[in-house]
């Protein structure tokens, strides 16, 4: 972060746009109307105000393939790259018809045959045909996902920066771990460190929690207060320069049952060996589910992996999407946030999360936060 709001660097923007325009062509899309923050950033390279949670679909960024023009919903030009001139900015609006009128005025909308959107509401499904009278409205997400799936070299550089801030914030929170501290206080320390590090936009806000000794995944206790002997999980997620960096670790606190905790961390390490070995070009995303089986560990309550990039990228590896994960072939340039999770009754859970890049011949673990016991 600097002292000015700056657009993404030109080389990063251009490489992303090239990939996305190629996918528009491959998916036969004349126009893309994008509402999702990550898709908007991918095309525009402009930082937007960060707000937590989902937001309803709206036409925030419109791209015409024939001209390459990008039209962006922004009332001001701060942080807008110079290749999106003032006349292609349109201001914040509350009346959907104001936005429809803007779309009507964009060259290429009236004649478009196929228009992709990245989500839709029933209301905009009725209104968009007013701006695209000759077009079939189709799902534009597959094109954007295909573009975003493989990271460019520039993207990887930014993503590494995001991971660095996530790891620093995790370390700050771990340093405050002691009996009597609360989950909320640890999360506060983590979010404070992220903001002070230049990232006041958390990707996740479940910063720390006491793992339960009685149940595989429920919270240990309602007051969130750490007690001696607990295993405390830390999950740091930031959105830095548009890219999500995530890392997770578990640390014991106070007087622990040494042998039982050691055994659990050994199980975690054995699981990580299988998980990392499952990540290589040509492997299936579903192999990560199989890695849990091979390690003799039950699947955790959360997805085992999801793609990292500008927010979520495919795949999401969870037993609810087993066929999808089995069909997803890993390729160099994909980055996954992988979750390792083992639990033992009476001891608690060891949770870990690593960012892993699929390389030409295997995997590179991008995260390097210190771990209790062995490192993955």
């Amino acid at each position: 972060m600097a002292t000015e709001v700056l657009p993404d660097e030109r080389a990063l923007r251009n490489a992303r746009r090239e990939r996305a325009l190629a996918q528009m062509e491959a998916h036969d899309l004349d126009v893309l109307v994008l509402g999702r923050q990550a898709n908007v950033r991918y095309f525009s390279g402009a930082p937007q105000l960060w707000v937590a949670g989902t937001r309803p679909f709206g036409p925030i960024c419109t791209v015409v393939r024939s001209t390459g023009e990008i039209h962006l919903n922004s009332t001001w030009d701060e942080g807008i790259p110079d290749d999106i001139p003032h006349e292609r900015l349109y201001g914040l609006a509350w009346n959907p018809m104001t936005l429809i009128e803007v779309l009507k005025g964009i060259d290429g909308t009236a004649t478009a045959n196929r228009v992709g959107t990245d989500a839709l509401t029933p209301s905009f499904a009725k209104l968009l045909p007013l701006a695209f009278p000759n077009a079939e409205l189709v799902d534009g997400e597959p094109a954007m996902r295909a573009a975003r799936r493989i990271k460019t070299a520039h993207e990887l550089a930014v993503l590494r920066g995001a991971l660095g801030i996530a790891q620093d914030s995790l370390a700050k929170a771990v340093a405050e771990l002691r009996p009597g501290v609360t989950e909320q206080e640890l999360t506060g320390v983590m979010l404070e460190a992220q903001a002070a590090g230049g990232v006041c936009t958390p990707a996740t806000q479940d910063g720390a929690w006491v793992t339960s000794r009685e149940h595989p995944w429920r919270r240990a206790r309602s007051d969130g207060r750490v007690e001696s002997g607990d295993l405390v999980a830390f999950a740091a997620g930031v959105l830095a320069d548009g890219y999500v960096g995530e890392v997770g670790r578990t640390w014991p606190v106070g007087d622990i049952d040494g042998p039982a905790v050691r055994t659990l961390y050994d199980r975690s390490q054995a699981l990580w060996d299988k998980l990392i070995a499952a990540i290589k070009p040509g492997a299936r995303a579903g192999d990560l589910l199989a890695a849990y089986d091979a390690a003799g560990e039950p699947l955790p309550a959360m997805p085992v992996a999801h793609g990292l990039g500008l927010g979520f990228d495919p795949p999401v590896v969870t037993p609810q999407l087993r066929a999808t994960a089995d069909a997803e072939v890993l390729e160099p340039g994909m980055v996954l946030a992988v979750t390792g999770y083992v639990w033992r009754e009476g001891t608690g859970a060891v949770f870990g999360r690593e960012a892993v890049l699929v390389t030409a011949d295997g995997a590179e673990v991008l995260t390097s936060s210190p771990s209790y016991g062995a490192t993955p």
Partner: protein
Amino acid sequence: MTTSATVAPGAIKDPGDIPDTPDMSRMYRESGARLRAAMADHGVDALVLLNNGSVVYATGASWPLLDAGLSHVERPVAIVLADDEHPHLFLPFREGAAAAADIPADHLHPPLYLEFDEGVQHFARVLTDLVPAGAKLAIDELTGAMRRSADPRFAGAVDAAPIVGAAKLVKTIDQIAAIRKACRITEEAVVDVQKALAPGVRQIDLSAQFVRRAFELGATTNMLEAIWQVMPESRAAGTWTTHGDLALPLLTTERELSAGDVLWTDVSITYRGYCSDFGRTWLVGDSPTSRQQDQFSQWRHILDEVLKVTKAGATSGDLARAATAANSGHKPWLPHFYLGHGIGTNAAEMPMIGTDLGEEFDDKFVFPAGMVLVLEPVVWEDGTGGYRSEEIVVITDDGYVPLTDYPYTPYGD
């Protein structure tokens, strides 16, 4: 939790009538009843809700919200049936995410993944099990996979947003308590931030201090990238905008604050799913000049004139006219925003007052008792940095009750 006897939202006479903490079980029952009543009004048999704010409203579940880029994938989904007092909740496990205490076990389900064909195929079976054939369905978002599925139930669904919006408009007493609790956490956290305000402090230092304190005090989610915007010397010297008026909100950076900087601030958190909204104008290391003091006086005058007409039965148009009349005929809000907006599980909800929805829309929007409104007039004169603050009020039968309780330092008390 409080179980004391409570007044109806419209009959609140002063802030002391609002419980200190919300009774979440009562909130769950009452908002569920409101939602089903709105469904009946719209002739809808089942609601499918994907948007975070709507799911919070319908289920009482709250969790630390994810970034927009993640939240559409690992998203809780609710199905609300007209003849069932309990919603069905499909809840992803995301780290330590909080559960919904009042939903029976047979209504809690594993997560849905509606961004994927496989997930939507599963969802189609879920719908068949839960929703009778031929039921009229409303949905608030159609994912690409839902559109591709060609399931006629999705294509034939109406928009759920107006139905949820109708239910959300009038808050229950516990929702008002939750909003006020969020405001109290925010205000308490902000006290320390304002104390730290000095030349040389970076904008992001203020953000860091705020978020830590807010979480220590019990915030569930940081909702908004905290805004500490340094105002320009003049409109002309400010950032270019589509309408030629001021830009707001401009993003926070590592910029160091200087003596005399005028800051327009804006932060928001949630407490158990309900939002706060805080905005004040601050001055760095200095006291206001008489011209700056005049800006505040003018802002205060506008707010007072608006509050004089604020009560159940008033319209958005009434408030907009009162504000404009108090400002010599000029609208005292920015063209891309509003004089005021509602608040609840979303930081900005209906009504939005004075927008491009138009005067007719504003004149037809009649305030019910129990609505919660954020008023945020803006005053600007070149060379002063202007003045903007936010005041949250509950609309009552006789007028309003303030929820915001924070001084105007250094401009006033």
